[in-house]
């Protein structure tokens, strides 16, 4: 049973959380990596004064050969020039941002919902269309209090327990 214990008050990236358990091996598959003008929705959620270039990065997370999570990040490409040239199958997103752009995630505001799997999500996670998923969505802020990312992840329901 693959279980991750997420602390409700401490920020840890997915890869850091998985690394806490020595029995888990993490593989990442990049499903989408595209730069385009932000949608109205993302512009509003990030409270941008106008539409900006956004990198949409969608990754499938696989633990011990079991697909468990699809993470979608919408990153402010303007703050992170040429970020789309990194290979996020091998490199951690947050480490890349920290090492190359001098921005560290300082805090996040997040929400958990239960939602139903789309056809694509069902295919990628090997589950039934319409079955339940735990969704986590939120905004990451850097040490300068800039919103740098809006993220949404959908996860198989038994993956996470959340603790404070």
């Amino acid at each position: 049973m693959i279980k991750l214990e997420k602390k409700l008050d401490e920020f840890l990236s997915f890869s850091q959380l998985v690394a806490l358990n020595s029995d888990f091996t993490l593989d990442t598959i990049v499903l989408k990596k595209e730069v385009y003008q932000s949608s109205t929705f993302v512009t509003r959620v990030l409270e941008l004064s106008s539409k900006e270039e956004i990198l949409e990065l969608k990754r499938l997370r696989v633990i011990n050969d079991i697909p468990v999570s699809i993470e979608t990040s919408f990153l402010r490409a303007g703050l992170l020039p040429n970020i789309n040239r990194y290979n996020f199958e091998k490199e951690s997103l947050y480490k890349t941002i920290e090492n190359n752009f001098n921005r560290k995630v300082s805090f996040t505001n997040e929400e958990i919902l239960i939602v139903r799997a789309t056809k694509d999500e069902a295919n990628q996670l090997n589950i039934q269309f319409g079955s339940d998923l735990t969704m986590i969505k939120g905004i990451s802020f850097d040490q300068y209090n800039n919103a740098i990312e809006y993220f949404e992840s959908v996860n198989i329901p038994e993956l996470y327990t959340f603790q404070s």
Partner: protein
Amino acid sequence: MNKPTETYPLYLIVKDKLKQKILTWNFLDGYELPSERDLAEELHVSRMTVKRALAILENEGYIYRIQGKGTFVHHSNLTNKIDIGDKSYIGLLQTVEKEGKKATTHVISFERVTLTNAVVGHFDHQYSEFYELKRVRYVDNEPFSVQVTYLPYEEFIDAERYDFSIHSIYDFLEIHNQVPVIFKKELSVTIPSEEVMEHLKINRSKNLFQLICIGLNQDNTPVEVTYSYFNSSMVKFSYSTKSFD
């Protein structure tokens, strides 16, 4: 659909209809909306009317469009949900009423029980006798949550004198000067027991939020433990994290 009037034109009626569809999960298929032409045909209106309605929904953040690809629903924007997370108030009653909704409670049972399970551990093994209070909480008359609260019998023997369909646990604890000041929470997503499903009027096996909340007083002593099961379509759980690096 309603008939349009001078002050409420057709495109606004269409917007409401589409928004309702979005909010009730009628667009499950990859969250992609049908084309403008298909929507116009389905609703028996012109394509221009659909276009105008969609423009408003995009502005309001319910949908987004990718040029050349299509129009998609953001299920993350379905915020007709009550927040039961860290941004909510201490009690469900206040949380719900703050949203302008009506909260009511039905007490299923109130019993003295002897326990040996995880509940005992949450109280640091200080007690084995408890009051077990089972309640169904309703929001605008819809079953919203089933809550099972444990209070140590010897500390709160007078709990039986209170009507917990009217008074909250916290009002009762306040009388004892034992209002929790810290909460340890554990949230998971599980399929609940049949009893819980029945009270929440859920007829098929479905994943719900299970929230275990341990209320600690100012001396860091656990005074109450509540297991809550929430109708997942009505809630979200918010919180904030900090990097400790």
